[in-house]
């Protein structure tokens, strides 16, 4: 390949990567320091000069960088390589666990080796995010699919089971006292998954 063409293409790729996910700027919300009120608050907290710099940076980010990054998104989505890398910026305020009850017996509890039925599956890296969404948010969109999966496995392993319940429990760290936040139950013979009463 012609060295000038290669050099130009490479520069374009570096620019695209930088525009798509510039450190710090990518974390800022579009509306950051946009309103007069937000700018006045920043001036009171940090002074006039730092706020002016912040407003300039966030304006360029909002008006130039974000539209340019958005233009790159269609290409990224084909290969599912959206460049956004804000890993673990925070944590959950409360501790959450999933419990699986078959009839009246507890068979699985997140992080509890004494109740480890289906633990390998429920903690596997591709299922874990669905488990987390299910226990953190009531009515999360894949909760029924997860419940149906657990019921299927329960019926295979416990053919006499009459009822399977997935209960999301939560409590303050370190989790000595937990309470049920929401739950889903399926009963034989039709095994339809419904929110527990």
């Amino acid at each position, binding site marked *: 390949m012609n*060295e*000038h063409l*290669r*050099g130009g293409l*490479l*520069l374009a790729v*570096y620019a695209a*990567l930088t525009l798509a*996910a510039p*450190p*710090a700027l990518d*974390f800022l919300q579009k509306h950051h320091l946009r309103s007069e009120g937000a700018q006045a608050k920043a001036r009171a907290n940090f002074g006039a000069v730092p706020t002016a710099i912040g407003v300039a940076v966030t304006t360029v980010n909002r008006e130039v960088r974000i539209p340019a990054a958005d233009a790159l998104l269609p290409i990224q*989505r*084909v*290969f*599912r*390589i*959206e*460049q*956004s*890398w*804000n*890993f*673990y*910026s*925070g*944590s*959950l305020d409360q*501790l*959450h*666990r*999933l419990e699986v009850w078959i009839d009246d017996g507890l068979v699985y*509890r*997140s*992080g509890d080796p004494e109740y480890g039925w289906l633990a*390998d*599956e429920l*903690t*596997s*890296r*591709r*299922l*874990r*995010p*669905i*488990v987390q*969404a299910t*226990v*953190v948010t009531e009515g999360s*969109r*894949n909760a*029924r*699919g*997860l419940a*149906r*999966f657990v019921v299927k496995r329960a019926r295979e392993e416990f053919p006499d089971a009459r009822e399977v319940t997935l209960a999301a429990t939560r409590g303050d*760290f*370190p*989790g*000595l006292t937990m309470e049920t936040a929401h739950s889903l139950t399926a009963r034989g013979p039709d095994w339809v998954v419904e929110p527990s009463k």
Partner: protein
Amino acid sequence: MARLWRRWLTWSGREVDARPLALTRVLLPIMLLLDMARLVQLGLVDDLFRHYDQGGINVALNPHLWLDNLSPMWGGPVAVGVVMAALACVAAGVLYRPALLVALVGYAQLGHLCGPSDRGIDRILRTVMLILIVSEAHKHFSLKRPWKDRIPAWPQDLVRYLLVLVYMNSGFAKLLGDPAGWLGFEGQSHLYRIITNPVAGHVDPVMADDWGWVLWLGGWFTIGIELAAPLLLTRHAHWWALAGVALHLGIAATMELGMFSWGMLSLYPILFAESPWLNARRSSASS
């Protein structure tokens, strides 16, 4: 300006030791293969890679998904097999570019098919795969001989730059998101809450509560490492990489993130490319 351009062309056109990038080309598909083999072993392929209407878990439809149109029932499971075969070819260095393209497109389609289970590590590895397609990483450690000792440096430089962005973004997100939760020294740190939450970590929350100060230090270490990532663009990259290895081993030991750490570490051979250790062994081997 012309001199600057010439310097850029010289730098980006240079050649480097082929082994680090070739090793990444071998390790990355092996990590993905093991990750998928684990899904097969657990019998999760049908549940994850079929839509809810076909008995799977995920209900969300993705506009970029076409695999499902080929066969809603078998598109996902067949794609897993095809991607695994393609990854084996990539690791072996045979049919390299077609195999890597098939693996990349199939892997992306599996991500579209079950979006919630497709994580940041998958996006990072796919981005690297896209870079590897146009590299000469298959010219060493491959079933095909003869091997080349030197290959163009620019794919390796791009992967390094990508890692700088990944780590720095993560560091700034922590710092700007909640500095007190990461850098303060009161109450429970974010690191404590992350590694003790039973749906993501596997550290006992009661036991770790007594070791809160260690986790505060761990949080500082994490942010320090992430913000120091520009060192990867210098000849001191290998020192940063040692700390990065420690970071990822710590994550692997305390969290349930599957192949996340191992996938990231599969990219690390290129961070040791200029290390005196690698080059000392090479010099002694050639003398």
